[in-house]
């Protein structure tokens, strides 16, 4: 069962790698860059918010961290090839992960709602610092970067591949954790943290690990974003709406699933950017957006993937019940979050 999953991943990777070669127009690539960025960040957020069940609202703090890191790097280095920021990207991720570890360790002493609020506070602290440490960050004047010296025809390629790389890294890490004891531990933490503590799960350890990896990935995305925009500003780099975007996409696609966040991003980012471009002039934009959002939450509270998978599973279970026979052949689990009553396999 591992091989097809990896094969699917491989096909997707090759397809995404080949996409720019098809001669797509600049505006399509531009849209893909932002889609990949949010897909990567949602996938990363999912490690904490989905798998560990800790709804962080402060991830944009690390997005801003990455953005400012790249911005500040340019203050001390000249651009030669233009690829330098991509080369130092792993360093950005690593640093953010290191900074994130103690923050996660402290923040994750609190649970659910309080955690959400503590993390959003963290975001405002980071924003305030970016504004106030103006000797370092340029404060309210913002920080401008040199124009990336890439030729026009392939201008978007480096950014596209950098975002793709972060997405693939995030998905690979998600896949690995799902397949290992890390994922098992996170599942127990999400379901019942006190119980997990009582059966010797390294609760704090896996929580901090997932937080740290997650924010490292988000910081890298922030770095690429900053370079693409060539300008960082505290309010834009530390924007609560960036976190909200990640959260929404994960909830829309399906929490604690490998593909859910990516699906959410593929629907929401082009949807949002394209709608704003096409009908943004209409005042009803925000109302329509909120209404769609509410409908999804009320109709598919678990997200698209788990809901649809469940419906199919149920239909299938009905279809095959005639030859299913013994109760032990009850439908297999759909992973996390199932609430569909399945006939119990008898009592002892």
């Amino acid at each position: 069962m591992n091989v097809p999953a990896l094969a699917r991943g491989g096909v997707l990777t090759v397809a995404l790698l080949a996409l720019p070669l098809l001669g797509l127009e600049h505006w399509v690539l531009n849209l893909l860059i932002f889609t990949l960025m949010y897909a990567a960040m949602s996938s990363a957020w999912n490690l904490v918010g989905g798998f560990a069940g800790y709804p962080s609202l402060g991830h944009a703090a690390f997005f801003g961290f990455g953005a400012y890191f790249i911005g500040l790097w340019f203050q001390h280095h000249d651009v030669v090839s233009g690829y330098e920021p991509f080369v130092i990207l792993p360093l950005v991720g690593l640093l953010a992960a290191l900074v994130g570890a103690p923050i996660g360790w402290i923040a994750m002493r609190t649970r659910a709602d309080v955690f959400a609020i503590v993390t959003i506070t963290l975001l405002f602290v980071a924003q305030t610092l970016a504004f106030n440490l103006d000797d370092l960050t340029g404060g309210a004047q913002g920080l401008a970067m040199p124009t990336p010296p890439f030729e026009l025809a392939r201008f978007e390629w480096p950014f596209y591949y950098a975002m793709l790389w972060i997405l693939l890294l995030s998905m690979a890490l998600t896949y690995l954790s799902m397949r290992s004891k890390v994922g098992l531990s996170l599942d127990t933490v999400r379901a019942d943290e006190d119980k997990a503590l009582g059966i010797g799960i390294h609760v704090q350890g896996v929580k901090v690990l997932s937080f740290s990896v997650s924010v490292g990935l988000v910081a890298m995305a922030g770095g690429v974003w900053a370079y693409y925009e060539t300008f960082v500003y505290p309010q834009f780099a530390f924007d609560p709406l960036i976190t909200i975007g990640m959260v929404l996409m994960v909830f829309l696609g399906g929490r604690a699933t490998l593909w859910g966040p990516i699906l959410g991003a593929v629907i929401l980012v082009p949807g949002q950017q394209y709608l704003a471009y096409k009908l943004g002039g209409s005042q009803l934009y925000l109302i329509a957006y909120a209404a769609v959002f509410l409908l999804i939450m009320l109709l598919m509270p678990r997200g698209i993937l788990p809901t649809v998978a469940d419906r199919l599973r149920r239909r299938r279970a009905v279809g095959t019940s005639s030859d299913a026979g013994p109760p032990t052949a009850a439908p297999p689990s759909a992973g996390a979050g199932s609430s569909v009553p399945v006939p119990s396999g008898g009592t002892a």
Partner: protein
Amino acid sequence: MSALLEITSARKVFGGVRAVDDCSLSVEEGSITALIGPNGSGKTTLFNLITGYLGADGGEFRFRGRDVTGSDPGRLYRHGLTRTFQQARVFPHMTVTENLVAAGGYRWRDLLVPRVSRRDRARAEVLLEEFRMTHVAELQAADLSYGQRKLLEFAAVLMSEPRLVLLDEPTAGVNPVMIETMERHIRERNGVGVTFLVVEHDMQFVMRLCNPVVVLNNGKEIFAGSPADVQQNPMVLDAYLGT
């Protein structure tokens, strides 16, 4: 016999209420000790103190001769001290096997091994066999009956080969057949050297299975002795009827 668990002067106060008040008690190695007392006498709080879920306001806890005051539940678990909860707490959206594997008490470096490795599966299968749950191994815990879930929780804490298991009302909400099953498993495990401390309201169950019986009232130990003695002790009767 020596004391596996020894508590001296444990105290816990909730907003002025002394839930556990200068309580001392010991559990002998190899025993099935019962902890009984009227509602609100502090049994569950004491459980939470012993297993590290709550920090005590005072007192000393020794387990296997070592001072474990202030240890967290995970550490105690890895030392061999574990518990079940009043309402069976299993992980509903994980399979029965996964529930067992998760409780396997693995180490840091095991985090990167597969979710359910071949070795884990083998270990889980032995327990499932013993608890006659092999046929539900791949079901989600949410799909089990309540009794089965209690059994699963019990089986899961045995994955780490504990020395002392604290059972919080193992028979509550369970049908009579399941009570017997539970009783049999406790006896079997006790037979191979596992010590039990049981909070239970079902007195017949306690009288059949446990010795000694410790009685708690108002957060204090008021009596400890054989089941027969408990029934005749006026202080115990008073505690149950008086308040």
